[in-house]
């Protein structure tokens, strides 16, 4: 950690970076936004925006379970619950013919309501409202270690499974004719999403987590012509929005996550205009 601090002091001797919490937040953003940029492309491809949103909402129940069990850091109960609800959604989707949107909606609202009911017992919901908007500046060196491990795991997994996952998302039968186990890749992808969303929630907040996943990819989609451009632009937009959002939120005294989302939205607006003019 010391190396990182002194490296920052040396390379970026700016006023806003003097505090250790800002250095931590910057490192956090450098680790987490590329993952958002990468995973977002597949989420937008598969039209799963609503699913990522519901993963965020179901985290409330995860926190509530943690509180009931008396766990200090509810991250484990949140992880457990979001993986559980992902499996539940996939299983129900397979046996049921109702629209996927409806099924996700049912699970998402149930999980959110259950979380609020448990957490608001004895009128104590306010102390959990930090989870709604998140606090990126509270990120500490232990969190950063977790994030680094997750970063390496996700990038590795994404390199290994992407091509086959991509084919499976284009046409399951076509993927099957190439010997791809479609269901395995569907599960791997949604599990990865569940883990990333859950881990990031305490810093980004339940209300805007899915915007961070969707916006960079959606903006990139406006201007990209192939998969490589799509990913490169998406990761770049996520990184730039993350860093500039952190700096602006410092000077404006605003919530970091929401500031980042606003900048990503601006990117979307600009690329959308570019797309219209390019026609």
């Amino acid at each position, binding site marked *: 950690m010391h190396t990182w601090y002194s490296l920052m002091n040396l390379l970026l001797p700016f006023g806003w970076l003097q505090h250790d919490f800002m250095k931590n937040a910057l490192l956090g953003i450098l680790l987490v936004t590329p993952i958002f940029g990468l995973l977002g492309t597949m989420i937008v491809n598969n039209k799963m925006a609503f699913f990522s949103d519901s993963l965020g909402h179901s985290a409330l129940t995860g926190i509530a379970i943690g509180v009931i069990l008396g766990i200090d850091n509810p991250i484990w109960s949140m992880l457990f619950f979001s993986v559980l609800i992902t499996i539940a959604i996939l299983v129900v989707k397979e046996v049921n013919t109702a629209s996927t949107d409806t099924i996700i909606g049912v699970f998402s609202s149930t999980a959110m309501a259950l979380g609020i009911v448990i957490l608001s017992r004895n009128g104590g919901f306010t102390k959990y409202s930090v989870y709604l908007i998140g606090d990126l500046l509270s990120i500490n060196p232990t969190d950063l270690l977790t994030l680094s491990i997750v970063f390496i795991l996700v990038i590795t997994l994404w390199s290994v499974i992407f091509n086959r996952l*991509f084919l499976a998302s*284009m046409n399951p039968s076509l993927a099957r*004719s190439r010997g791809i186990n*479609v269901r395995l890749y569907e599960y791997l992808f949604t599990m990865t999403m569940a883990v990333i969303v859950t881990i990031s929630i305490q810093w980004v907040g339940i209300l805007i987590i899915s915007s961070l996943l969707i916006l960079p990819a959606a903006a990139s*989609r406006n201007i990209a*012509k192939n*998969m*490589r451009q799509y990913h490169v632009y998406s990761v770049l937009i996520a990184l730039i929005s993350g860093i500039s959002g952190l700096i602006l939120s410092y000077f404006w005294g605003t919530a970091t996550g929401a500031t980042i989302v606003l900048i990503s939205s601006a990117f979307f607006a600009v690329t959308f205009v570019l797309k219209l003019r390019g026609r």
Partner: protein
Amino acid sequence: MTMNLNMIQHNCTHTSEGTSCKCGLCCTTITNFGVTRGGTEILRNVNLHIHCGDLTAIIGPNGAGKSTLIKAILGEIPHSGELQFLDAKDQGTTKPSMGYVPQKLDLDSSSPTSVLDLFAATHTRMPIWFTYPRKIRERVRETLARTKVEHLINQRLGALSGGELQRVLLALALDPIPHLLLLDEPVSGIDQRGLDLFYKTVSTLRQDYDLSIILVSHDLNLVAEYADRVAFINNNTIECTGTPQEVFSNERIIKTFGLDWSQRYQSNEKDKVDHAHMV
């Protein structure tokens, strides 16, 4: 009650029979296929024998189980019975390798997926969001040349016409050359000229590579023109098989598709024969 016009043969000693068959020794057999999902029997007692070099068309009313049969052959849904490929050289039986041309891909017209992306994702493990292997472009160009679409290599899939996309997907299914080619005919978005071009290409390739082809189709004129054999699926099983002439003069089929079409077909055939006599 089944009424197979041609008795299904279970061994491959039919060298004289396959008219367009060069090697005449290899074949694919589907024996006693059945599919039951959610307690409902969708297919039962399906037997098909496909000679190499033959195009077998599967016709039948909607909901009769045509697409279920394709999915079962692909192994996408579980089935009873056996699927075997009998090799000409060693007379051994294996699972046939399969090429599949889907009706459509799950992508919207703005998707940043190029033709090269689709092929690279199929042929390599190198994640396409990172880079392409060096030699892939050359290989893909050669493959695309088989269906005369090599000029589309850098195009986005969403920007192709229905006919162009079908030929790109056909090229994909033919790399590597499969034992069995499954064509799920496009239901919409493809004009008559594109359709003709597509089936002309299929015919040429069938002769060049001695392909066994299963075609699912609603277009009976097309089936009459290109198919060597026709299998009629109705009431969850194959009710009759035979040459187009045999099958299209069958009462049951006339009832299903309407007397009108059948009479037109018969008179067309008669015209052809008369015309041939005159020449």
